[in-house]
């Protein structure tokens, strides 16, 4: 072992905890996060942070006004209201800090992965020099050997190596990276386990995938998404309109006092309390937490969204392009039947097929052995005669075994036919029909021959994943069209499409045809999501509204898409859509709830407000609240406490199950609209009872 390849320092205390990728399970109310969030909610009190959120900014200003009023005219009431208004702001900050907390904790774990070691840069003449990682720039060549951390993102230009990517993906099984082709991309921070590779750096320092990932999970430069901007405008508009609504009450009530010869007592504290209760503080407080938590939920599923915009678009997707292999089918074709021809029986076919597949380590080959064992209990057998295995080659398109004089082959129909003919054998007339029939039903036929004799056909079938049909049914109910994309011929594609229950399929797909399909769908006003990994997928990934690149894919693919799936699991696309929808539903539900709450607050505060001018308005005090001050304070307390109560909902997202739009709407209107009308009546009354019980007058 040379000094260069020395093992990394390995004192147990210094090694970071085993990294598990970003998606570490963490409880929603992890104590550490709670502590950080409590500190964060105080830090966020700075006006510079507050001004970003118009609704909460008004609350903060209102708090300042009541504070001054409480100093000028101290009373238990004015100080209580001031305290609860301040708590309202703090609770809002707390919600946001909670949402950010998880990302921050994950970012901290990721940072530990960033290597401080020196990179081995190759000079012009093949010389090596050691430079800090930060000095690497695009185009540099570096050498990585077993045990080295790859210093930055790049492309393997020489050699092949197994790489441990668990720091990024959480997946512990090593992956192969080699020069050329679609498996050449390596990510900074991952570790070479064996062999030696030369990597050409493709990222500028500070802009590596790991850096981006850290800033994404941390939400460092989070920008408001388009829908969030629109909602903020609506909330700001409501806030702005409630300002005059409340301000004019002063002259209105003074005039009413003149008209009715009364002496009302409309104090500033009550007016500010009314304003804060009316403006949509609940959604205003939770809006950014909802957005951050939505991104976070994707991270929990090991998907990194490059922008919140993409998450929102995921909720809007109307067409999903799904790769057949891995998403819809298990990925490998499996032997499902032995079909005899020419007077043989199926056991003979199975026996020969098993022999021909003994050395076949492909999944298809192994499945033949498994099927033979299952159907006819054909097991390993005596190989005394010294078998010679004939591996599959692209030129023969057959594989098999020579066992003494016996030569058994399986392979594509044309190839086997030629092979049999060459030995002077004849092909049974029904073979063509059988082969064609199988192909038409979506299966792949493999013909088995024993010397010049054709015995029969192995049927290899694509196995559709369990439960995938139900998932497509759900998607259809939500109005999402699924399109299966496959390189298979149209016959095979149609059969699988039907079995899996997709709406449509694209057979003999090429990157160009995928692109055409996306453009056609978009021209029809549809939003399209797709997943891809190869460099030739990059244009389609960029064209799609939601393009999820697999982490195993090429750099080009990762840069073209707007999300990266660290698990490289094609089924993820469906999860992504669900997270997007849940995010939007949570926003809508809490907005509805927040606005519906105002009705009860009016019934609490208006009678209290004008109690001296028009005592008859107490008829509106349908909650029978104890006194004007207890009514106002109860409403303010409810307004603050409801934010805390809804933090878990904002972070987890509202319960979501696939359903047609109008069914979902009916349910949510009922729960959050009608619920939002009723709930505050109950709780304001309860708070009022509590205040009365503790001696409030």
């Amino acid at each position: 072992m040379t000094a260069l390849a020395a093992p990394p320092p390995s004192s147990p205390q210094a090694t970071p905890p085993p990294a598990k990728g970003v998606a570490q399970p963490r409880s929603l109310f992890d104590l550490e996060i709670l502590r950080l969030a409590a500190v964060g909610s105080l830090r966020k009190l700075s006006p510079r942070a507050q001004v970003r959120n118009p609704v909460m900014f008004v609350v903060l200003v209102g708090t300042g006004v009541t504070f001054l009023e409480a100093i000028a005219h101290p009373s238990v009431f004015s100080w209580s209201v001031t305290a609860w208004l301040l708590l309202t702001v703090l609770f809002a900050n707390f919600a946001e800090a909670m949402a950010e907390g998880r990302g921050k904790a994950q970012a901290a774990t990721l940072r530990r992965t960033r290597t401080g070691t020196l990179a081995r840069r190759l000079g012009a003449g093949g010389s090596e020099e050691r430079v800090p990682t930060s000095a690497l720039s695009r185009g540099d060549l570096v050498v990585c050997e077993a045990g080295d951390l790859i210093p930055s993102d790049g492309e393997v230009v020489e050699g092949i190596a197994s790489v441990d990517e668990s720091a990024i993906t959480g997946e512990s099984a090593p992956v192969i990276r080699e020069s050329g082709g679609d498996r050449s991309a390596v990510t900074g921070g991952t570790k070479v386990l064996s062999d030696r590779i030369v990597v050409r750096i493709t990222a500028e320092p500070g802009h590596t995938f790991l850096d981006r990932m850290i800033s994404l999970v941390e939400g460092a430069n989070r920008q408001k998404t388009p829908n969030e901007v629109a909602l903020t405008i609506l909330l700001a508009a409501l806030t702005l309109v409630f300002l005059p609504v409340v301000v004019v009450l002063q002259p209105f009530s003074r005039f009413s006092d003149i008209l009715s010869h009364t002496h009302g007592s409309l104090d500033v504290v009550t007016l500010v309390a009314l304003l804060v209760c009316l403006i949509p503080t609940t959604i205003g407080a939770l809006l950014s937490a909802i957005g951050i938590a939505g991104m976070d939920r994707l991270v929990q599923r090991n998907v990194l969204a490059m922008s919140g915009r993409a998450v929102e678009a995921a909720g809007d997707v109307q067409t999903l392009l799904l790769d057949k292999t891995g998403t819809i089918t298990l990925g490998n074709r499996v032997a499902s039947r032995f079909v005899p021809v020419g007077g043989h029986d199926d056991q003979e076919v199975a026996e020969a097929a098993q022999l021909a597949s003994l050395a076949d380590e492909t999944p298809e080959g192994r499945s033949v052995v498994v099927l033979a064992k299952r159907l006819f209990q054909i097991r390993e057998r005596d190989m005394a005669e010294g078998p010679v295995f004939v591996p599959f080659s692209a030129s023969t398109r057959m594989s098999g075994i020579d066992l003494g004089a016996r030569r058994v082959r399986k392979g594509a129909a044309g190839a086997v036919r030629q092979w049999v003919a060459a030995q002077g054998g004849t092909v049974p007339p029904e073979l063509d029909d059988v082969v064609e029939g199988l192909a038409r039903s979506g299966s792949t036929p493999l013909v088995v021959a024993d010397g010049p004799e054709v015995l029969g056909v192995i049927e290899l079938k694509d196995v559709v994943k369990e439960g995938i049909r139900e998932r497509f049914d759900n998607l259809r109910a939500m109005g999402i069209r699924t399109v299966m994309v496959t390189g298979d011929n149209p016959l095979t594609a149609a059969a699988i499409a039907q079995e899996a229950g997709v709406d449509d399929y694209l057979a003999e797909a090429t990157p160009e045809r995928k692109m055409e399909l996306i453009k056609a769908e978009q021209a029809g006003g549809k939003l399209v999501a797709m997943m891809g990994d190869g460099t030739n997928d990059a244009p389609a990934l960029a064209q799609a509204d939601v393009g999820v690149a697999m982490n195993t894919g090429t750099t080009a693919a990762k840069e073209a898409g707007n999300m990266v799936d660290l698990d490289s699991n094609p089924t993820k696309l469906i999860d992504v859509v669900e997270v997007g929808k849940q995010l939007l539903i949570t926003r809508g539900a809490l907005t509805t709830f927040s606005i519906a709450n105002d009705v009860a607050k009016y019934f609490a505060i208006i009678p209290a407000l004008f109690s001296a001018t028009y005592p008859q308005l107490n008829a509106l005090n349908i909650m029978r609240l104890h006194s004007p001050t207890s009514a106002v304070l109860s409403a303010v307390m409810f307004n603050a406490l409801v934010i805390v109560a809804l933090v878990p909902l904002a972070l987890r997202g509202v319960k979501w199950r696939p359903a047609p739009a109008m069914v979902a709407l009916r349910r949510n209107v009922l729960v959050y609209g009608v619920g939002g009308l009723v709930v505050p009546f109950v709780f304001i009354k309860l708070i009022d009872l509590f205040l009365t019980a503790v001696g409030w007058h």
Partner: protein
Amino acid sequence: MGYFGTIVALLALLALAWRYLGGYMEAVFAGRVRYLAWAERPVYWALGVDPEAEQPWPRYAAALVVFSGTAILVTYALQRLQGSLPFNPQHLGAVAPALSWGTAVSFVTNTNWQSYAGETTMSYFTQMAALTVQQFVSASVGIAVAVALVRGFSRRGSPTIGNFWADITRCTFYVLLPVAFVAGVVFVAQGAAQTLAGPVAVHNPLDGVAQVIARGPVGFMEPVKELGTNGGGFFNANGAHPFEDPTGLTQFLSCVLVLAIPVALTYTFGRMVGSTRQGLALLAAMAVIFGTWLGFSSYAESQPNPAVAAAHVVAQPAGNMQGKEVRFGPMPTTLYNIASTQTSTGSVSGANDSFNPMGGFGLISGMMLGEVSPGGDGSGLYTVLLFAIVAVFVGGLMIGRTPEYLGKKVQAREVKLAALGVLVMPVTVLVLSAVAVSVHAGRAAIGNGGPHGFTEILYAFVSQANNNGSAFAGLDANNAFYNITGALAMLLGRFGVIVPTLALAGTLASKGTVATSAGTFRTDTPLFVGLLVGVILIVGGLTFFPAVSLGPLAEQLSKGLFR
């Protein structure tokens, strides 16, 4: 015909208007109706415009503002100069400047708030050339804006939203003039006054009383007052004057005319966006609000007047007769006044001031909801569409999609413009009312003490900012303060909504459309109707609840809730 029969007949005629007038208007605005092309051509020639040249929204809006501004100046000038103009048998002098200004703004904004008695202030020429002309064209302006907005929904990637000049010309020639003419024949046949011969002096030999009976070219002016949801009557008594509204038939016909175009436009809308169900949904939301308020006020007015009851002079078997049209009774009067306040018409058949408090609340609250049930000509449709965008935005999120309405994504710009359009009216009303109750000139004008006095002021600004024009009476509004603040309310309530609406039309027209699927928020279902009504009620309720509690609510509660 009983009250119930009246309502059934009204519904039947409105159903016909919805289908046929609505379909006809669609054809008119698509440019397919051309039988008066010979009359259109000189108008375009005189204006120097090409009716086929489509305008982007800023040019459309600019044309509208220039047209309305010119109309205000012309209407003002005609009033000021009426002494030297023909058709002035009473030799009426120039109308006072503040009143001329207020009246000009009032008629151009389709408000028709009248701080004057028409028969003793305006010459026949002013009534015809200034006021009646505006009753036609101001309604056309409203309808044109609504049509432009609907074009925004129905077009894809279009830089333009129509041609303003062609729209108002066609609306006036093909829709308003023919209907108003036919209805005018009926009104005159029923006995509405129609003469240029001036008032007559009569002497009643029986009791020795000498009177001057005002007359004028009323019969053919009357239908457009209703059809154009204007409400500017010839006489001070407006629809309660027998020369304006001679019989039960004309009373009924007035209700039909008032509701016809706002109702029919929902069909026009449905046809233009390719689904009449969409129009039906909007109509249903309008009908729910209208029906609720009609039932509410009808019930309130079937109760005795508490003040009369307290005096123990007469029994009140028919309900509250005070201030009602005595020929027809409380119910038809209530129907007329509800139809007129919920359509931004503002003509009255009985004194709003004398309604029971909660009956009066029915009148004012219909306006507070933004005049969408069914609202004024055009303005009802475009305002309800603004509410629909807000409803779709909030509701649409709850299905997990960024919201869309009629295939158009509702994004930041749409929300901004819709919120602006919806909120201009309440802010205008509240701020101007606050000013009025804070200054002497504003306070001095009220006619009653207690919450009723506050309601008088609030009603005045609600009515003007909604371009309704009905008056609660009691308030002496013919002074500089109310003429100026009132004109401000009318201008903001009209153009403060129209300009954002046209901007919205432009934005929508330029967008592409999103395909619909089972995942789309359907806006032609009862659920959406409920949501839309909810949003309208909540926005109106939240903005006006405190003010209402200091006015009608306090008044009613002081008398016990209904008896």
